[in-house]
Protein backbone atom coordinates (compact mmCIF):
# COMPACT_ATOMS: atom_id res chain seq x y z
CA UNK A 1 0.00 0.00 0.00
CA UNK A 2 1.39 3.34 -1.03
CA UNK A 3 -1.61 5.58 -1.13
CA UNK A 4 -4.72 6.22 0.84
CA UNK A 5 -7.75 6.19 -1.39
CA UNK A 6 -10.98 8.08 -0.90
CA UNK A 7 -12.72 4.87 0.01
CA UNK A 8 -10.07 4.03 2.57
CA UNK A 9 -10.40 7.49 4.11
CA UNK A 10 -14.16 7.24 4.20
CA UNK A 11 -13.96 3.87 5.89
CA UNK A 12 -11.39 5.23 8.37
CA UNK A 13 -13.67 8.11 9.36
CA UNK A 14 -16.53 5.69 9.97
CA UNK A 15 -14.21 3.43 11.96
CA UNK A 16 -13.20 6.41 14.09
CA UNK A 17 -16.85 7.03 14.87
CA UNK A 18 -17.18 3.47 16.15
CA UNK A 19 -13.98 3.71 18.15
CA UNK A 20 -15.06 6.94 19.80
CA UNK A 21 -18.47 5.54 20.64
CA UNK A 22 -16.84 2.42 22.10
CA UNK A 23 -14.62 4.61 24.28
CA UNK A 24 -17.24 7.15 25.26
CA UNK A 25 -17.35 6.24 28.95
CA UNK A 26 -13.60 6.03 29.17
CA UNK A 27 -13.19 9.52 27.70
CA UNK A 28 -15.84 10.97 30.00
CA UNK A 29 -14.18 9.38 33.00
CA UNK A 30 -10.83 10.90 32.08
CA UNK A 31 -12.52 14.29 31.69
CA UNK A 32 -14.35 13.89 35.00
CA UNK A 33 -11.08 13.67 36.88
CA UNK A 34 -10.24 17.27 36.07
CA UNK A 35 -12.95 18.68 33.83
CA UNK A 36 -16.69 18.40 33.52
CA UNK A 37 -16.92 14.77 32.53
CA UNK A 38 -18.47 15.28 29.14
CA UNK A 39 -15.64 14.70 26.70
CA UNK A 40 -16.92 11.27 25.71
CA UNK A 41 -20.39 12.71 25.22
CA UNK A 42 -19.17 15.62 23.07
CA UNK A 43 -16.98 13.39 20.95
CA UNK A 44 -19.70 10.80 20.46
CA UNK A 45 -22.23 13.41 19.43
CA UNK A 46 -19.70 14.99 17.09
CA UNK A 47 -18.60 11.78 15.41
CA UNK A 48 -22.15 10.53 15.08
CA UNK A 49 -22.82 13.71 13.11
CA UNK A 50 -19.69 13.09 11.05
CA UNK A 51 -20.76 9.56 10.16
CA UNK A 52 -24.23 10.68 9.22
CA UNK A 53 -23.00 13.49 6.98
CA UNK A 54 -20.30 11.39 5.37
CA UNK A 55 -22.66 8.54 4.53
CA UNK A 56 -24.90 10.95 2.68
CA UNK A 57 -22.12 12.31 0.44
CA UNK A 58 -22.20 11.19 -3.18
CA UNK A 59 -18.81 10.29 -4.55
CA UNK A 60 -16.81 12.58 -2.24
CA UNK A 61 -13.24 13.65 -2.85
CA UNK A 62 -10.58 13.47 -0.16
CA UNK A 63 -11.12 17.16 0.53
CA UNK A 64 -14.92 16.71 0.64
CA UNK A 65 -14.54 14.01 3.26
CA UNK A 66 -12.21 16.05 5.44
CA UNK A 67 -14.18 19.26 5.10
CA UNK A 68 -17.48 17.50 5.83
CA UNK A 69 -15.90 16.00 8.92
CA UNK A 70 -14.67 19.39 10.07
CA UNK A 71 -17.96 21.14 9.40
CA UNK A 72 -19.93 18.39 11.14
CA UNK A 73 -17.70 18.73 14.19
CA UNK A 74 -17.92 22.53 14.25
CA UNK A 75 -21.65 22.61 13.84
CA UNK A 76 -22.72 19.77 16.10
CA UNK A 77 -20.40 19.49 19.08
CA UNK A 78 -19.84 22.93 20.48
CA UNK A 79 -17.64 22.64 23.59
CA UNK A 80 -13.92 23.14 23.08
CA UNK A 81 -13.78 20.14 20.77
CA UNK A 82 -16.01 21.40 17.99
CA UNK A 83 -13.88 24.36 16.97
CA UNK A 84 -10.55 22.63 17.71
CA UNK A 85 -11.03 19.35 15.86
CA UNK A 86 -13.32 21.09 13.39
CA UNK A 87 -10.71 23.67 12.41
CA UNK A 88 -8.11 20.91 12.20
CA UNK A 89 -10.15 18.93 9.68
CA UNK A 90 -11.20 21.98 7.67
CA UNK A 91 -7.55 23.01 7.30
CA UNK A 92 -6.64 19.45 6.45
CA UNK A 93 -9.23 19.56 3.68
CA UNK A 94 -7.67 22.71 2.27
CA UNK A 95 -4.24 21.07 2.33
CA UNK A 96 -5.60 18.03 0.51
CA UNK A 97 -6.61 20.24 -2.36
CA UNK A 98 -7.84 18.17 -5.28
CA UNK A 99 -5.73 15.11 -4.51
CA UNK A 100 -7.46 11.92 -5.62
CA UNK A 101 -5.58 9.97 -2.99
CA UNK A 102 -2.89 10.64 -0.40
CA UNK A 103 0.65 9.37 -0.57
CA UNK A 104 2.96 9.74 2.42
CA UNK A 105 4.12 13.19 1.45
CA UNK A 106 0.56 14.41 0.86
CA UNK A 107 -0.62 12.77 4.07
CA UNK A 108 2.10 14.55 6.00
CA UNK A 109 0.99 17.92 4.59
CA UNK A 110 -2.59 17.13 5.50
CA UNK A 111 -1.65 16.31 9.10
CA UNK A 112 0.60 19.37 9.38
CA UNK A 113 -2.33 21.51 8.32
CA UNK A 114 -4.52 19.70 10.87
CA UNK A 115 -1.95 20.41 13.57
CA UNK A 116 -1.60 24.06 12.63
CA UNK A 117 -5.36 24.51 12.59
CA UNK A 118 -5.78 23.08 16.07
CA UNK A 119 -2.87 25.09 17.45
CA UNK A 120 -3.92 28.37 15.90
CA UNK A 121 -7.51 27.96 17.05
CA UNK A 122 -6.65 26.94 20.60
CA UNK A 123 -3.30 28.60 21.20
CA UNK A 124 -2.06 25.65 23.22
CA UNK A 125 1.56 24.52 23.12
CA UNK A 126 3.19 21.16 23.75
CA UNK A 127 3.25 20.65 27.52
CA UNK A 128 -0.03 22.44 28.20
CA UNK A 129 -1.72 19.05 28.73
CA UNK A 130 -4.06 18.97 25.75
CA UNK A 131 -4.61 17.10 22.50
CA UNK A 132 -1.70 19.12 21.17
CA UNK A 133 0.58 16.84 23.18
CA UNK A 134 -0.64 13.94 21.06
CA UNK A 135 -0.72 15.78 17.75
CA UNK A 136 2.69 17.40 17.66
CA UNK A 137 4.90 14.33 18.25
CA UNK A 138 2.68 12.21 16.02
CA UNK A 139 2.95 14.63 13.11
CA UNK A 140 6.68 15.03 13.78
CA UNK A 141 7.07 11.27 13.53
CA UNK A 142 5.16 11.22 10.25
CA UNK A 143 7.33 14.00 8.88
CA UNK A 144 10.50 12.29 10.10
CA UNK A 145 9.48 9.02 8.47
CA UNK A 146 8.73 10.79 5.23
CA UNK A 147 12.06 12.62 5.25
CA UNK A 148 13.98 9.42 5.98
CA UNK A 149 12.24 7.79 3.01
CA UNK A 150 10.27 5.16 4.86
CA UNK A 151 7.14 3.60 3.39
CA UNK A 152 3.62 4.58 4.29
CA UNK A 153 3.01 1.63 6.57
CA UNK A 154 6.18 2.15 8.60
CA UNK A 155 5.42 5.86 8.75
CA UNK A 156 1.93 5.18 10.10
CA UNK A 157 3.41 2.80 12.63
CA UNK A 158 5.80 5.51 13.88
CA UNK A 159 2.91 7.97 13.87
CA UNK A 160 0.78 5.79 16.18
CA UNK A 161 3.66 5.03 18.52
CA UNK A 162 4.46 8.73 18.85
CA UNK A 163 0.80 9.61 19.36
CA UNK A 164 0.55 7.09 22.18
CA UNK A 165 3.70 8.41 23.82
CA UNK A 166 2.39 11.94 23.43
CA UNK A 167 -0.87 10.99 25.05
CA UNK A 168 0.91 9.36 27.96
CA UNK A 169 3.22 12.34 28.33
CA UNK A 170 0.23 14.34 29.58
CA UNK A 171 -0.06 12.27 32.76
CA UNK A 172 2.59 14.04 34.85
CA UNK A 173 1.80 17.49 33.43
CA UNK A 174 -0.14 20.29 35.10
CA UNK A 175 -2.91 21.65 32.90
CA UNK A 176 -2.24 25.14 31.50
CA UNK A 177 -5.25 25.80 29.30
CA UNK A 178 -8.94 25.08 29.10
CA UNK A 179 -11.39 24.19 31.81
CA UNK A 180 -9.01 21.98 33.74
CA UNK A 181 -6.36 24.70 34.08
CA UNK A 182 -8.32 26.10 37.07
CA UNK A 183 -7.65 22.93 39.00
CA UNK A 184 -3.91 23.59 39.06
CA UNK A 185 -1.93 20.86 40.77
CA UNK A 186 -4.95 18.60 41.06
CA UNK A 187 -4.53 17.84 37.36
CA UNK A 188 -1.13 16.21 37.84
CA UNK A 189 -1.25 12.43 37.50
CA UNK A 190 -4.27 12.32 35.21
CA UNK A 191 -4.12 11.54 31.50
CA UNK A 192 -5.74 14.30 29.45
CA UNK A 193 -9.08 13.45 27.85
CA UNK A 194 -8.48 15.37 24.61
CA UNK A 195 -5.01 13.89 24.20
CA UNK A 196 -6.64 10.50 24.57
CA UNK A 197 -9.44 11.05 22.07
CA UNK A 198 -6.86 12.37 19.64
CA UNK A 199 -4.75 9.24 20.09
CA UNK A 200 -7.81 7.07 19.46
CA UNK A 201 -8.56 9.02 16.28
CA UNK A 202 -4.99 8.78 15.00
CA UNK A 203 -4.60 5.12 15.89
CA UNK A 204 -7.90 4.13 14.34
CA UNK A 205 -7.14 6.13 11.23
CA UNK A 206 -3.77 4.43 10.81
CA UNK A 207 -5.06 0.91 11.48
CA UNK A 208 -8.03 1.38 9.22
CA UNK A 209 -6.12 2.69 6.22
CA UNK A 210 -3.37 0.12 6.74
CA UNK A 211 -5.80 -2.74 6.75
CA UNK A 212 -4.33 -5.79 8.52
CA UNK A 213 -0.77 -4.61 8.01
CA UNK A 214 -0.23 -2.39 11.06
Amino acid at each position, binding site marked *: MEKITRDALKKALLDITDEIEANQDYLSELDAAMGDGDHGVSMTLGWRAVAEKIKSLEDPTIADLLKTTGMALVSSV*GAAMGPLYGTGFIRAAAAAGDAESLNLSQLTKVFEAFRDGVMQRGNAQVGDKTMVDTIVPAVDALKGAEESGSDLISALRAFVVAAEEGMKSTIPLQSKVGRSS*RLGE*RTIGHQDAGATSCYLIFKTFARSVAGGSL
Partner: protein
Amino acid sequence: MKKLINDPYKVVDEMLAGFVKAHPNYVRMVHPRGLVRKAPPKKGKVGLMIGGGSGHKPAFIGYIGEGVADGVAVGNVFASPPPEPALEVTKAIDTGAGVLYSYGNYQGDILNFNMAAELAAMEGIRVETVLVTDDIASAPKDQMEKRRGIAGDFFVFKIAGAMAETMASLDEVKRVAEKANFNTRTMGVALSGCTVPAAGKPIFTLGENEMEIGLGIHGEPGVRRGKLETADEVATDITERIIADLPFQSGDEVAVLVNGLGATPYMELYIVYRKVAEILADHGISIYRSYVGEYVTSLEMAGCSVTLMRLDDELKRLLDAPADTPFFVQK
Protein backbone atom coordinates in the same frame (compact mmCIF):
# COMPACT_ATOMS: atom_id res chain seq x y z
CA MET B 1 -28.00 7.94 37.84
CA LYS B 2 -31.60 8.81 38.71
CA LYS B 3 -33.11 11.41 36.49
CA LEU B 4 -36.53 12.18 35.14
CA ILE B 5 -35.51 12.00 31.52
CA ASN B 6 -36.11 9.97 28.38
CA ASP B 7 -33.17 9.63 25.99
CA PRO B 8 -30.08 11.14 27.67
CA TYR B 9 -28.94 12.45 24.29
CA LYS B 10 -32.18 14.35 23.82
CA VAL B 11 -32.42 16.14 27.16
CA VAL B 12 -31.60 19.55 25.75
CA ASP B 13 -33.97 19.35 22.81
CA GLU B 14 -36.81 18.06 24.95
CA MET B 15 -36.15 20.70 27.58
CA LEU B 16 -36.25 23.43 24.95
CA ALA B 17 -39.48 22.06 23.52
CA GLY B 18 -41.01 22.22 27.00
CA PHE B 19 -39.58 25.64 27.71
CA VAL B 20 -40.92 27.23 24.55
CA LYS B 21 -44.34 25.70 25.17
CA ALA B 22 -44.38 26.82 28.81
CA HIS B 23 -43.37 30.41 28.11
CA PRO B 24 -44.89 31.35 24.76
CA ASN B 25 -45.27 34.97 25.83
CA TYR B 26 -41.58 35.35 26.54
CA VAL B 27 -39.63 33.46 23.90
CA ARG B 28 -39.51 32.10 20.39
CA MET B 29 -37.08 29.77 18.63
CA VAL B 30 -34.95 31.00 15.76
CA HIS B 31 -32.81 27.86 15.61
CA PRO B 32 -33.27 24.48 17.32
CA ARG B 33 -30.66 25.74 19.78
CA GLY B 34 -31.35 29.45 19.70
CA LEU B 35 -34.07 31.39 21.53
CA VAL B 36 -34.91 35.08 21.41
CA ARG B 37 -37.51 37.31 23.03
CA LYS B 38 -41.01 36.93 21.73
CA ALA B 39 -41.42 40.63 21.02
CA PRO B 40 -39.39 41.86 18.05
CA PRO B 41 -36.48 44.05 19.13
CA LYS B 42 -36.92 47.81 19.31
CA LYS B 43 -35.19 49.51 16.38
CA GLY B 44 -31.82 50.86 17.48
CA LYS B 45 -31.60 48.82 20.68
CA VAL B 46 -28.35 46.95 21.31
CA GLY B 47 -28.97 43.22 21.47
CA LEU B 48 -27.66 41.21 24.43
CA MET B 49 -26.83 37.61 23.66
CA ILE B 50 -25.87 35.32 26.51
CA GLY B 51 -25.42 31.60 26.52
CA GLY B 52 -23.33 28.58 27.10
CA GLY B 53 -23.91 24.95 27.97
CA SER B 54 -27.16 23.62 29.39
CA GLY B 55 -27.62 22.40 32.95
CA HIS B 56 -27.42 25.82 34.60
CA LYS B 57 -31.11 26.68 34.70
CA PRO B 58 -32.40 29.38 35.16
CA ALA B 59 -29.23 30.40 33.30
CA PHE B 60 -29.32 30.98 30.49
CA ILE B 61 -32.72 30.66 28.81
CA GLY B 62 -34.58 31.70 31.95
CA TYR B 63 -33.18 35.21 31.53
CA ILE B 64 -34.63 36.03 28.11
CA GLY B 65 -36.92 39.01 28.34
CA GLU B 66 -37.32 42.66 29.13
CA GLY B 67 -34.43 44.09 31.11
CA VAL B 68 -32.09 41.15 30.64
CA ALA B 69 -31.16 39.16 27.53
CA ASP B 70 -32.48 39.42 23.99
CA GLY B 71 -31.32 35.98 22.99
CA VAL B 72 -29.59 32.83 24.13
CA ALA B 73 -27.52 30.26 22.26
CA VAL B 74 -27.99 26.88 23.91
CA GLY B 75 -25.35 24.17 24.11
CA ASN B 76 -25.47 20.57 25.21
CA VAL B 77 -25.14 19.87 28.92
CA PHE B 78 -22.02 21.71 30.11
CA ALA B 79 -20.87 22.22 26.53
CA SER B 80 -20.74 25.50 24.69
CA PRO B 81 -23.14 25.78 21.77
CA PRO B 82 -21.63 25.62 18.29
CA PRO B 83 -21.30 28.87 16.30
CA GLU B 84 -24.41 28.35 14.19
CA PRO B 85 -27.16 28.92 16.80
CA ALA B 86 -25.17 31.88 18.15
CA LEU B 87 -25.05 33.36 14.66
CA GLU B 88 -28.77 32.86 14.12
CA VAL B 89 -29.58 34.49 17.45
CA THR B 90 -27.23 37.36 16.63
CA LYS B 91 -28.95 37.99 13.34
CA ALA B 92 -32.38 37.85 14.94
CA ILE B 93 -31.61 40.35 17.71
CA ASP B 94 -29.48 42.84 15.81
CA THR B 95 -31.37 45.98 14.87
CA GLY B 96 -28.36 47.76 13.45
CA ALA B 97 -27.03 48.87 16.83
CA GLY B 98 -24.84 45.82 17.27
CA VAL B 99 -24.87 42.91 19.69
CA LEU B 100 -23.08 42.35 22.98
CA TYR B 101 -22.07 38.79 23.75
CA SER B 102 -21.67 38.12 27.44
CA TYR B 103 -20.89 34.73 28.92
CA GLY B 104 -18.64 32.97 31.37
CA ASN B 105 -14.95 32.74 30.60
CA TYR B 106 -14.58 29.19 29.32
CA GLN B 107 -12.38 28.03 26.50
CA GLY B 108 -15.18 26.20 24.65
CA ASP B 109 -17.53 29.17 24.80
CA ILE B 110 -14.86 31.56 23.65
CA LEU B 111 -13.88 29.40 20.70
CA ASN B 112 -17.44 28.95 19.51
CA PHE B 113 -18.75 32.44 20.20
CA ASN B 114 -15.71 34.00 18.56
CA MET B 115 -16.40 31.96 15.43
CA ALA B 116 -19.99 33.20 15.52
CA ALA B 117 -18.80 36.78 15.97
CA GLU B 118 -16.53 36.45 12.93
CA LEU B 119 -19.41 35.11 10.88
CA ALA B 120 -21.66 37.90 12.15
CA ALA B 121 -19.05 40.49 11.20
CA MET B 122 -19.06 39.05 7.68
CA GLU B 123 -22.76 39.87 7.59
CA GLY B 124 -22.08 43.41 8.75
CA ILE B 125 -23.14 43.00 12.39
CA ARG B 126 -20.92 44.57 14.99
CA VAL B 127 -20.32 42.26 17.95
CA GLU B 128 -18.53 43.05 21.19
CA THR B 129 -17.82 40.57 23.97
CA VAL B 130 -17.64 40.83 27.75
CA LEU B 131 -16.47 37.68 29.50
CA VAL B 132 -17.61 37.11 33.05
CA THR B 133 -14.67 36.32 35.34
CA ASP B 134 -16.10 36.47 38.85
CA ASP B 135 -14.78 33.22 40.36
CA ILE B 136 -11.94 34.23 42.66
CA ALA B 137 -11.06 30.61 43.38
CA SER B 138 -10.18 29.84 39.78
CA ALA B 139 -7.07 31.99 39.41
CA PRO B 140 -5.10 34.49 41.48
CA LYS B 141 -6.03 38.14 41.25
CA ASP B 142 -3.08 39.04 39.04
CA GLN B 143 -4.45 36.62 36.45
CA MET B 144 -8.02 37.85 36.53
CA GLU B 145 -8.40 37.17 32.81
CA LYS B 146 -8.08 33.47 33.61
CA ARG B 147 -10.93 33.38 36.07
CA ARG B 148 -14.12 31.49 35.32
CA GLY B 149 -17.56 33.01 35.18
CA ILE B 150 -20.01 31.51 37.65
CA ALA B 151 -22.95 33.01 39.54
CA GLY B 152 -21.69 36.53 38.84
CA ASP B 153 -23.12 35.97 35.35
CA PHE B 154 -26.44 37.04 36.79
CA PHE B 155 -25.26 40.48 37.88
CA VAL B 156 -23.37 41.16 34.68
CA PHE B 157 -26.31 40.11 32.49
CA LYS B 158 -28.75 42.11 34.62
CA ILE B 159 -26.66 45.27 34.38
CA ALA B 160 -25.93 44.94 30.67
CA GLY B 161 -29.56 44.12 29.91
CA ALA B 162 -30.84 47.11 31.87
CA MET B 163 -28.40 49.41 30.09
CA ALA B 164 -29.38 48.10 26.66
CA GLU B 165 -33.00 48.80 27.57
CA THR B 166 -32.13 52.53 27.90
CA MET B 167 -31.19 52.51 24.19
CA ALA B 168 -27.54 53.14 25.07
CA SER B 169 -24.89 52.46 22.43
CA LEU B 170 -23.00 49.19 22.15
CA ASP B 171 -19.91 50.86 23.62
CA GLU B 172 -21.91 52.03 26.61
CA VAL B 173 -23.53 48.67 27.18
CA LYS B 174 -20.12 47.06 26.96
CA ARG B 175 -18.70 49.61 29.38
CA VAL B 176 -21.25 48.92 32.13
CA ALA B 177 -21.00 45.16 31.61
CA GLU B 178 -17.24 45.41 32.10
CA LYS B 179 -17.74 47.61 35.11
CA ALA B 180 -20.21 45.14 36.60
CA ASN B 181 -17.84 42.27 35.94
CA PHE B 182 -14.88 44.08 37.43
CA ASN B 183 -16.82 44.77 40.62
CA THR B 184 -18.27 41.28 40.96
CA ARG B 185 -16.57 38.48 42.90
CA THR B 186 -17.82 35.02 43.72
CA MET B 187 -16.74 31.88 45.50
CA GLY B 188 -18.56 28.61 46.05
CA VAL B 189 -18.54 25.23 47.74
CA ALA B 190 -20.12 21.93 46.73
CA LEU B 191 -21.44 19.19 48.99
CA SER B 192 -22.13 16.72 46.21
CA GLY B 193 -21.31 16.16 42.57
CA CYS B 194 -23.68 15.96 39.65
CA THR B 195 -24.16 13.77 36.61
CA VAL B 196 -24.14 14.77 32.95
CA PRO B 197 -27.10 12.71 31.66
CA ALA B 198 -25.33 11.19 28.67
CA ALA B 199 -22.25 10.39 30.77
CA GLY B 200 -24.42 8.59 33.32
CA LYS B 201 -21.97 8.77 36.22
CA PRO B 202 -21.31 11.54 38.73
CA ILE B 203 -18.35 13.71 37.76
CA PHE B 204 -17.03 13.31 41.26
CA THR B 205 -18.28 11.85 44.50
CA LEU B 206 -17.61 13.15 47.97
CA GLY B 207 -17.36 11.38 51.29
CA GLU B 208 -19.90 11.98 54.06
CA ASN B 209 -17.62 14.59 55.62
CA GLU B 210 -16.08 16.26 52.62
CA MET B 211 -16.78 19.26 50.51
CA GLU B 212 -15.24 20.75 47.39
CA ILE B 213 -14.09 24.34 47.76
CA GLY B 214 -13.86 26.83 44.94
CA LEU B 215 -15.79 24.91 42.37
CA GLY B 216 -17.20 25.93 39.03
CA ILE B 217 -20.68 25.39 37.67
CA HIS B 218 -20.00 22.43 35.44
CA GLY B 219 -19.79 19.86 38.14
CA GLU B 220 -16.03 20.01 37.83
CA PRO B 221 -14.07 19.46 41.05
CA GLY B 222 -13.10 22.54 43.05
CA VAL B 223 -9.62 23.88 43.66
CA ARG B 224 -9.35 21.86 46.83
CA ARG B 225 -11.24 19.32 48.87
CA GLY B 226 -11.76 19.92 52.55
CA LYS B 227 -13.75 18.67 55.45
CA LEU B 228 -17.40 19.60 55.68
CA GLU B 229 -17.82 22.75 57.77
CA THR B 230 -20.75 24.50 59.37
CA ALA B 231 -22.70 27.07 57.39
CA ASP B 232 -21.14 29.86 59.43
CA GLU B 233 -17.62 28.60 58.80
CA VAL B 234 -18.23 28.24 55.09
CA ALA B 235 -19.88 31.65 54.84
CA THR B 236 -17.08 33.27 56.80
CA ASP B 237 -14.35 31.65 54.78
CA ILE B 238 -15.70 32.53 51.38
CA THR B 239 -17.02 35.97 52.28
CA GLU B 240 -13.70 37.04 53.81
CA ARG B 241 -11.85 35.84 50.72
CA ILE B 242 -14.21 37.72 48.45
CA ILE B 243 -13.91 40.90 50.50
CA ALA B 244 -10.12 40.69 50.45
CA ASP B 245 -10.02 40.07 46.72
CA LEU B 246 -11.45 43.27 45.25
CA PRO B 247 -10.92 44.47 48.04
CA PHE B 248 -14.32 45.63 49.26
CA GLN B 249 -13.95 48.35 51.86
CA SER B 250 -15.78 49.99 54.70
CA GLY B 251 -18.33 52.37 53.23
CA ASP B 252 -18.86 50.31 50.07
CA GLU B 253 -22.37 49.45 49.05
CA VAL B 254 -22.89 46.01 47.56
CA ALA B 255 -25.42 43.72 46.00
CA VAL B 256 -25.34 40.21 47.48
CA LEU B 257 -26.25 36.98 45.75
CA VAL B 258 -26.37 33.71 47.67
CA ASN B 259 -26.84 31.19 44.90
CA GLY B 260 -27.87 27.57 45.28
CA LEU B 261 -26.18 25.10 42.94
CA GLY B 262 -29.26 22.96 42.46
CA ALA B 263 -30.00 20.57 45.30
CA THR B 264 -29.43 22.76 48.33
CA PRO B 265 -32.65 23.76 50.09
CA TYR B 266 -33.39 27.48 50.26
CA MET B 267 -33.36 27.10 54.04
CA GLU B 268 -29.62 26.55 53.92
CA LEU B 269 -29.10 29.45 51.53
CA TYR B 270 -30.75 31.79 54.03
CA ILE B 271 -28.68 30.40 56.87
CA VAL B 272 -25.59 31.22 54.82
CA TYR B 273 -26.99 34.63 53.86
CA ARG B 274 -27.52 35.47 57.53
CA LYS B 275 -23.82 35.01 58.22
CA VAL B 276 -22.72 36.83 55.08
CA ALA B 277 -24.81 39.83 56.13
CA GLU B 278 -23.23 39.73 59.59
CA ILE B 279 -19.71 39.70 58.17
CA LEU B 280 -20.46 42.56 55.79
CA ALA B 281 -21.83 44.59 58.68
CA ASP B 282 -18.63 43.90 60.64
CA HIS B 283 -16.63 45.29 57.74
CA GLY B 284 -18.78 48.40 57.45
CA ILE B 285 -20.00 47.28 54.03
CA SER B 286 -23.66 47.98 53.47
CA ILE B 287 -26.08 45.81 51.56
CA TYR B 288 -28.05 47.66 48.93
CA ARG B 289 -29.99 44.74 47.50
CA SER B 290 -29.97 40.97 47.99
CA TYR B 291 -30.83 37.94 45.95
CA VAL B 292 -31.12 34.49 47.52
CA GLY B 293 -32.11 31.49 45.46
CA GLU B 294 -31.10 29.55 42.39
CA TYR B 295 -29.71 31.87 39.75
CA VAL B 296 -26.98 29.81 38.08
CA THR B 297 -27.01 26.11 38.87
CA SER B 298 -25.02 23.00 38.11
CA LEU B 299 -27.69 20.33 37.58
CA GLU B 300 -28.41 18.56 40.88
CA MET B 301 -25.23 19.59 42.63
CA ALA B 302 -25.59 20.49 46.32
CA GLY B 303 -23.78 23.57 47.53
CA CYS B 304 -23.84 27.30 47.13
CA SER B 305 -21.85 30.34 46.19
CA VAL B 306 -21.67 33.86 47.52
CA THR B 307 -21.34 36.81 45.14
CA LEU B 308 -20.75 40.46 45.96
CA MET B 309 -20.99 43.28 43.45
CA ARG B 310 -19.68 46.68 44.47
CA LEU B 311 -22.11 49.37 43.43
CA ASP B 312 -21.93 52.97 42.34
CA ASP B 313 -24.91 55.14 41.45
CA GLU B 314 -25.00 53.92 37.88
CA LEU B 315 -24.87 50.25 38.84
CA LYS B 316 -27.54 50.79 41.50
CA ARG B 317 -29.86 52.37 38.98
CA LEU B 318 -29.31 49.54 36.53
CA LEU B 319 -29.69 46.88 39.20
CA ASP B 320 -32.98 48.41 40.32
CA ALA B 321 -34.37 48.57 36.78
CA PRO B 322 -37.37 46.32 36.17
CA ALA B 323 -37.01 42.96 34.49
CA ASP B 324 -39.51 40.47 33.16
CA THR B 325 -38.16 37.08 32.14
CA PRO B 326 -39.45 33.54 32.72
CA PHE B 327 -37.25 33.13 35.79
CA PHE B 328 -36.52 36.57 37.02
CA VAL B 329 -39.11 39.26 37.41
CA GLN B 330 -38.38 42.48 39.21
CA LYS B 331 -40.78 45.36 39.56
